[in-house]
């Protein structure tokens, strides 16, 4: 789960990490008021969207007067900000963060994440702050320093001491940075983060380190123990269909293709997308109905797929292990009796009681295209998609492509 910069900074502030004073605003007037409350003579107005690269998209504006704060906030709010990470359609700005301006003597980079290969959290530090770290890693790997954290011992003094000794900063700054890194790790650990990135971590002219930007992502699986974090979810930043699917316990990811799919199991779901692609189609989604795959879930799955106007066909691919295929078939039949499915549906079921399941589909009176195996399913999808003739929808409209062939 992602949160906004201002939310991340609030969490960090609560844990004693130095961040600039600031508050969020949803209107230009609120933004002006926030700046007034902060006082001072310079402010920064920052668009709050979940995607990064906001600076390049014009989402971070420096203001030298309250009028400018109001003006920039007004321009940003309601606009669609396009950054390297949003895609061309951009992301709507619903909030801005108004912060005191900071003098910057030096920009550093710092991030904490889970290193899968090492099976441990990793801390990455670089003197090349304020830049895209992937570029730094590619062009100047010698400017990136990292250490792994023994999750039981914690981030040891000697580790941060060793890391900061690599930076081109004086001993006093090193002594100030070391405990800050341990505080950041403390937050990372306490809040079950999957990512905590501070870019830039700045040094002020009087050698104080300040977290100028903060990106936090959380382990969804750990949200059960962090009600405070879960409450920070902003559904407006997420795809509405995915939000709906999650409410139905479906793992759904919207893609840009035209063949919807309903599969049990994540690996098989990916493989099914692959098979669609190999057959010349293009998957409209990833959808795992899970091990249960009962009638309710299948019904909701169809509902979500049908809400995507690009879907021209649906492929159901289910391997009945513990799940019995006949029970699953009954669930599908029940589901399609309640949802208007107006595209062709290819069904491939295998495993426990598959024969019985296929019989149920065949005898349903509906135009299911029943496939023998995954290869056959791919062929049938290809046929439906590439046929010049209108394909038969489940409820009988159009022609039955199989009969035509």
């Amino acid at each position, binding site marked *: 789960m992602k949160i906004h910069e201002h939310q991340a900074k609030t969490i960090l502030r609560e844990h004693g990490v130095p961040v600039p004073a600031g508050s969020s605003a949803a209107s230009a007037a609120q933004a002006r008021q926030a700046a007034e409350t902060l006082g001072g003579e310079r402010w920064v107005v920052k668009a709050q969207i979940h995607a990064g690269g906001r600076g390049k998209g014009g989402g971070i504006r420096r203001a030298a007067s309250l009028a400018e704060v109001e003006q920039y906030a007004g321009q940003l709010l309601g606009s669609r900000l396009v950054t390297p990470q949003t895609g061309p359609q951009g992301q709507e700005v619903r909030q801005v963060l108004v912060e005191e301006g900071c003098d910057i003597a030096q920009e550093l980079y710092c991030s904490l994440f889970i290193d899968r290969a090492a099976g441990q*959290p990793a801390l990455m530090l670089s003197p090349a702050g304020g830049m895209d770290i992937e570029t730094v890693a590619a062009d100047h790997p010698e400017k990136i320093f990292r250490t792994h954290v*023994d999750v039981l011992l914690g981030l040891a003094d000697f580790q941060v001491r060793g890391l900061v000794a690599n930076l081109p900063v004086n001993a006093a700054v090193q002594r100030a940075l070391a405990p800050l890194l341990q505080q950041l790790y403390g937050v990372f650990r306490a809040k079950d983060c999957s990512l905590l990135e501070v870019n830039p971590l700045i040094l002020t002219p009087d050698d104080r380190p300040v977290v100028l930007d903060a990106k936090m992502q959380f382990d969804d*699986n750990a949200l059960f123990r962090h009600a405070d974090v879960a409450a920070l979810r902003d559904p407006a930043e997420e795809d509405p269909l995915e939000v709906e699917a999650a409410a139905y316990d479906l793992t759904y*990811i919207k893609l840009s293709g035209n063949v919807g799919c309903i599969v049990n199991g994540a*690996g098989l779901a*990916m493989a099914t997308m692959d098979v669609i692609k190999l057959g010349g189609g293009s998957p409209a989604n990833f959808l795992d109905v899970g091990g249960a795959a009962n009638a309710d879930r299948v019904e909701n799955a169809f509902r979500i797929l049908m809400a995507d106007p690009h879907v021209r066909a649906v492929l159901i691919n289910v391997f009945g*292990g513990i799940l019995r295929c006949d029970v699953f078939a009954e669930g599908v039949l029940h589901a399609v009796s309640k949802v208007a499915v107006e595209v062709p549906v290819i069904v491939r079921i295998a495993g*426990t009681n598959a024969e019985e399941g296929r019989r149920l589909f065949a005898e349903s009176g509906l135009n299911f295209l029943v496939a023998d195996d995954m290869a056959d399913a791919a062929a049938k999808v290809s046929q439906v998609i590439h046929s010049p003739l209108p394909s038969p929808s489940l409820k009988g409209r159009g022609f039955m492509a199989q009969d035509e062939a």
Partner: protein
Amino acid sequence: MSILVDENTRLLVQGMGREGRFHAEQAVDYGTRYVGGVNPGRGGGAALGRPLFNTVAGAVADTGADTSIIFVPAPFAADAICEAIDAGIGLVVCITDGIPVLDMVTVRRYMAGKDATLIGPNCPGVISPGKAKVGIMPGHIHQPGRVGVISRSGTLTYEAVAQLTARGIGQSTCVGIGGDPIGGLNFVQCLSLFEADADTDVIVLIGEIGGSAEEEAAAYIAEHVSRPVVGFIAGQSAPTGRRMGHAGAIIDGARGTAASKIAAMEENGLTVVRSPAGIGAAVADVLDGNT
């Protein structure tokens, strides 16, 4: 022979709820030697004709269990794994999915230097066909034989196994190592077990996008594995930056792509199958000496 589990396995079920009981029953039906269950607060009772215990230590003392399968809910699963290891269980299979990553990081660190193997979490478990089933896979699709299967997936593994069995090709052991980013037994460790198994002739390795375990496995195979290995990678059509169901299945920037994994497999001499429909055929070809 086979790896990890066999007819001597003494199986304990941790978390004897509805799901645990169902799969214990399936395991018993398959012929697995199930010796008891653990349900804190229910100790003294029984399940499927074997005793229930409050603690794994108590169960091990009474039953001589050497293997456990965990169905404990995610918030408590890491504790259950540590309990099993602390009690001296040698093989712990954790079915539970949705365990927090840092819990698993902690478990891995806790296990360092201890003599125990963890499979999973978020996995279908392990089966040595005809000998023992310690998992949630459907037993009937398997057939005893000489092909080892390793996979990060559940139903996709069943698909692959079914393709083998449909061709009359049996399996020595099938291991689902799980779809989480941080787990126990990895591809390399599992490959080394198969390499040491005299009764495994061919290995099927089913990977997916995310992480670099497949690349590491491919490099290891070139160096240490004498058996032919057939590989498949799920997620060739997956987009970047999205978790494809499995917590571990995510392409992160340019890392973890199917293309990178397939290239590593090809470079290291694996037989790579592009379509998931072609796994069984590819193994048959290898066995026939057609590759």
